[in-house]
């Protein structure tokens, strides 16, 4: 099936300069190339692990772009937003060392170098506020909160479009709603000879209207949004009137077949049904489309062809995230004397992966490494900047048997945060005891080196990431004494039931119960014992708060994370319904702030409050557990005299040693 695209010869001639007006029968191919959700991953580098990671990065997408440019005579490279936020590099340039007006953001420098020709704006572009966005995109937003006297700063060398986000002050879109690119292409004339012609490609951008709640603190009272359909209906006729031959929607969102609402987050299922859109570049959901194997519900909708990459017949691509894929929509066009006609049957839609094998990827473009070397090195220095220091080694090698060296500081930071939070904003919770639970996230699952291990010395952001691995936010639940006991009982499922009479070795750890669910308290006010001779659910003994047995009527606040408070790990009574504080701050940020405040962590004050111990029992045989070899001294330093080495090599071939714990001590 073919369809018609209006063309305005006069406009084409003006825009094309020296390029000839096409004659009927002229043919051209044009590939739209999409990146989306790059999230400032210019280089494949993990700034928290301080190590390269080949599985992502615009430096590898660059190779895909080069390949596509070789393959297709004409390409148009477009980005779909969520570009300037997402890595330590982004935070460094936005927060730690705010970008000077005459400097271009690293990710835009890279995009300029790669020859991007247009871009959209995603929701994360708003994460650092409007003034920053105005600056780094080279704009002068006419909006409250942005100084109108400020000069226009450096920005991307390509047009950025966003039609549905408007200033309350001016009632106009913050960015140009659309832009018409005079794309000069190599074509084949009716006589079969090469000819250069211009095609006007109109790009129009959309962001999820839900930015208003996600970045309320920056946006409330300053901007407003319109629905994607409404904006499309407003501007597409205007674009056509200005001579656009093709309309490309750059829409930062996914697909949602719910009834249309102007506030919906993923409006592209409905956007595709607006007349006149020739192709859609979508994103936000971090998915790959087209992808016949995808199980994502958004691609299993009526009118969506996830094999061919069509949404209500509109060629559509979503290129995953972090530069892992490049979206490619191949269009074949013929000029019929009045307009360019797309041969729909020959349109191709692909999301091309930078991954070539199980652990292999296309080569990275070294030019990008050189281009942003200064910013990259500065970010590494930023991540390594001391926050404070620790006078003791903080590790999880013996977390299962009571070493709190990597846990207590987390609990202390969380407790202090909640105490302040209540004092300043939730007086109704004042007076309730504040406890905190933490678990050893790293326990050797990936090998003997897979433990949290922060050496004595200065503490930097990457160490904080080792101490708090996951991107959770702090939640606090209000529970009673029975529920607290139930929580600890569930956590004690980490251990096998021990038979004291058995003479052979018994494994301490129930390997079907992961360490990240072994929550424990490190409060001087709480004491409890775990009786390993009892079945799961009956192990918590002598649970006391300030010396008194904890009763069913006692109430506690327990600081934890959103995962646990909302049902993660399947703990009894924790399903979100007892959450009383849902902080926007991440547990890691809270830990960092605490370390900055305390400055020096000492074992006596930050690693010696173990609330629990194993109930004493004499066993006929050894109780053994596996952890990294050569670490016994750490157990000693942690005061775990009941731990000793059983075998220097546990014999399982993974590099672990076998230790034993004497439950009678």
């Amino acid at each position, binding site marked *: 099936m073919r369809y018609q695209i209006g063309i305005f010869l006069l406009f084409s001639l003006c825009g094309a300069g020296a390029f000839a007006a096409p004659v009927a029968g002229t043919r051209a191919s044009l590939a739209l190339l999409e990146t989306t*959700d790059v*999230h400032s991953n210019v280089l494949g580098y993990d700034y928290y692990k301080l190590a390269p990671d080949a*599985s992502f990065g615009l430096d590898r997408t660059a190779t895909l772009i080069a390949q596509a440019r070789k393959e297709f005579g004409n390409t148009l490279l477009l980005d779909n937003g969520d570009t300037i936020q*997402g890595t330590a590099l982004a935070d460094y340039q936005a927060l730690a060392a705010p970008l000077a007006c005459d400097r271009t953001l690293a990710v835009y420098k890279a995009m300029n170098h790669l020859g991007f020709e247009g871009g959209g704006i995603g*929701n*994360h572009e708003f*994460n650092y506020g409007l003034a920053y966005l105005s600056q780094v995109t080279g704009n002068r937003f006419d909006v409250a909160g942005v100084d109108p006297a400020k000069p226009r700063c450096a920005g991307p060398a390509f047009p950025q479009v966003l039609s549905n986000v408007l200033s309350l002050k001016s009632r106009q879109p913050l960015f140009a709603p659309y832009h018409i690119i005079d794309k000069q292409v190599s074509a084949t004339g009716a006589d079969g000879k090469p000819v250069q012609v211009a095609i006007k490609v109109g790009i129009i951008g959309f962001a999820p209207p*839900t930015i208003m709640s*996600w970045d309320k603190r920056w946006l409330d009272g300053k901007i407003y949004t319109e629905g994607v359909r409404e904006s499309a209906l407003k501007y597409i006729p205007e674009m056509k009137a200005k001579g656009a031959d093709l309309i490309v929607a750059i829409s930062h969102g996914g697909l949602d*077949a*719910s009834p249309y609402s102007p506030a919906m*987050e993923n409006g592209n299922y409905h956007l595709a049904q607006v007349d006149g859109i020739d192709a859609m570049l979508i994103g936000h*959901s*971090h998915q790959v489309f087209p992808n016949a194997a995808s*199980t*994502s*519900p958004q691609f299993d909708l009526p009118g969506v062809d996830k094999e061919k990459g069509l949404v209500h017949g509109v060629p559509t691509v979503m290129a995953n*995230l*972090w530069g892992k894929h490049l979206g490619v929509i191949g269009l074949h066009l013929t000029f019929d004397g009045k307009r360019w006609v797309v041969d729909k049957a020959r349109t191709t839609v692909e999301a091309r992966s930078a991954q070539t094998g*199980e652990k292999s990827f296309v080569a990275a473009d070294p030019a990008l490494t050189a281009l942003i070397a200064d910013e990259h090195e500065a970010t590494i220095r930023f991540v390594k900047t001391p926050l404070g220091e620790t006078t003791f080694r903080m590790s999880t090698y013996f977390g299962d048997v009571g070493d709190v060296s990597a846990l207590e500081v987390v609990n202390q930071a969380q407790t202090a945060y909640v105490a302040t939070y209540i004092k300043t904003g939730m007086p109704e919770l004042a007076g309730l005891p504040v406890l905190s639970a933490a678990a050893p996230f790293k326990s050797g*699952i*990936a090998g003997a080196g897979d433990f949290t291990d922060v050496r004595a010395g200065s503490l930097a952001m990457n160490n904080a990431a080792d101490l708090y691995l*996951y*991107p*959770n*936010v702090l939640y606090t639940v209000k529970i009673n004494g029975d529920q607290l006991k139930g929580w600890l009982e569930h956590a004690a499922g980490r251990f096998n039931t021990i038979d004291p009479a058995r003479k052979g070795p018994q494994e301490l750890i129930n390997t*079907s*119960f*992961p360490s*990240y669910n072994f929550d424990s308290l490190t409060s001087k006010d709480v004491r409890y014992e775990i009786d390993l001779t009892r079945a799961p659910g009956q192990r918590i003994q002598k649970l006391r708060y300030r010396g008194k047995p904890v009763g069913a009527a006692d109430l506690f606040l327990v600081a934890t994370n*959103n*995962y646990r408070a*909302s*049902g*993660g*790990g*399947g703990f009894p*009574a924790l*399903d*979100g*319904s*007892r959450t009383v504080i849902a902080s926007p701050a*991440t547990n890691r940020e809270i830990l960092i702030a605490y370390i900055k405040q305390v400055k020096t962590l000492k074992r006596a004050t930050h690693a010696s409050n173990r609330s629990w111990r194993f109930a004493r029992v004499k066993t006929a045989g050894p109780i053994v557990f596996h952890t990294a070899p050569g670490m016994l001294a750490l157990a000693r330093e942690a005061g775990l005299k009941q731990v000793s080495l059983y075998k220097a090599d546990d014999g399982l071939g993974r590099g672990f040693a076998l230790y034993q714990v004497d439950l009678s001590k």
Partner: protein
Amino acid sequence: MKLASLLLALVCCIAHADEGPHAYARALAHRNGIGMAPDARIAAQWMAKAAGEGEARAMFAYSNMLWTGEGVTRDEALSRFWLEAAAERELPEALQELALALRHGARGFALDEARAAVLFQELAHAMRHPRH
């Protein structure tokens, strides 16, 4: 057949999207005894209904209930199904549960570090703009 009926239940959520949160609230009330005596069996019924109507939080909670057999016959495979479904909807806690399970080989999942890594990336992103 079971999978087909579940998929059908998921499809129904498109038409009844507003009913999910209501059924989820009922499920939580029965599960936790909020304004009524706790009843795990009735809670599981409401949770299943809410999950079928597309409520991601209910999918996650129902997955947990199926895993432990709380108010419902224990069913590991169905538990994994609903966990996957909740993660597909980018519920951060479900993404984390699934990623952790794949990294640790928990909840009956085979170890899959590569997929876990992708899900952790998804989690980091989802945490920046939770939908639920």
